């Protein structure tokens, strides 16, 4: 393929489509007259187009479309003609399909934010449910100040459990 052919090839389609600018048009037509290879390329594209049209026309030509308008009006009358909001499930599925990465990242950030907020707002008393539960079983509970930390020592028979809360340390 020589240089002129290389420059011609991308122009042949637009040429057949009637989309070539005038300055390219004259240049390409000159080349086509002199170049059997590019003429063959043009003919192949043209033949492709004809074949596509004929195939589609043959396929569509036999279809019975006589009831389409009635069917359309029947649906319009049944469903109303106002725009409807698509069902939430459809909207959600489409959004997930289109923005999967962004939604995943947003969910991760939101989860991290929730965890951080929960830690920030968590009451200083550690494990209140466990402590209440232990108290109900007769364990002794002592609140201890560990200087930088607050904590609780729970004695239940021979078992000693120390709860340390680093909330105070974080705040310092």
């Amino acid at each position, binding site marked *: *393929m020589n240089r002129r052919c*290389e*420059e011609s*090839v*991308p*122009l042949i*389609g*637009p040429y057949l*489509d*009637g*989309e*070539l*600018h005038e300055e*390219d048009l004259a240049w390409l037509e000159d080349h086509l007259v002199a170049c*059997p*290879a*590019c*003429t*063959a*390329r043009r*003919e*192949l*594209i043209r*033949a*492709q*187009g*004809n*074949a*596509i*049209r*004929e*195939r*589609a*026309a043959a*396929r*569509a030509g036999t*279809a019975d*479309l006589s009831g*389409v*308008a009635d*069917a*359309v*009006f029947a*649906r*319009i009358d049944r*469903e109303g*003609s*106002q*725009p*409807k909001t698509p069902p939430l499930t459809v909207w959600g599925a489409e959004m997930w399909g289109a923005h999967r990465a962004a939604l995943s990242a947003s969910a991760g950030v939101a989860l991290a934010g929730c965890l951080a907020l929960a830690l920030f707002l968590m009451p200083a008393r550690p494990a209140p449910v466990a402590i209440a539960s232990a108290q109900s079983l007769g364990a002794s509970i002592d609140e201890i100040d560990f200087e930088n930390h607050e904590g609780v020592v729970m004695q239940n028979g021979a078992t000693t459990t120390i709860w340390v809360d680093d909330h105070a340390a974080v705040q310092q």
Partner: protein
Amino acid sequence: MNESRKTPAAAQKSDAADDKPLVRAAQRGDRAAFRALVTKYQRRVYQLAVSMLKDPDEAMDIVQETFVRVHRYLPSFKGDSSFFTWTYRIATNLCLDVSRKKGRVERVDIDETDADIEAHMDPPSAAFAGPQRAALNEELKEKMDEALASLSEKHRSVLLLRELDGLSYEELAKVLGIRKGTVMSRLFHARLKMQRKLREYLGEEAKDEEPDVPEGEEERR
């Protein structure tokens, strides 16, 4: 009313002008006018849908759904594009939705890198321009479905829209929601791939190298 068949670009302009009174009447609620529009364009929409989906039943559903949506959104149609282009856009999107739901859409064309675009647009046999052309055209038609099916959805849709109804690049850009340069690029690659497939069927071997025209090279001309 007669249905509209394949329409050359020049005839489309007169179609668009003819449509305006019908569209305005339909917007006012004139059912006869809307019926006339449906009757006029239903076969072209069907032709597009059946070519894209290869399933007559699905194509029929697409035709109905297209015109139901056209009717639904007709009050908001301002006539910036032709009625037909607007209708085609709805139909095309519905076809793509159906393809997507069936997993037919190839999100990535793994075979369209520059390195792979080689030796597939070398001169086809001289028969394409010679006396055997008619016979080859018959053979091409038989293989056309297979070659079209081998294209990605984005390439098939742009090629069908162009070849079936002769939409201009500007109209294709509107229908597909892409830039005009992207239309040119996709058409080039779609035709290239079609040729590659058809040449395989015809048993031709590539002879020389294809110029580099990377997909995405836009707006050069």
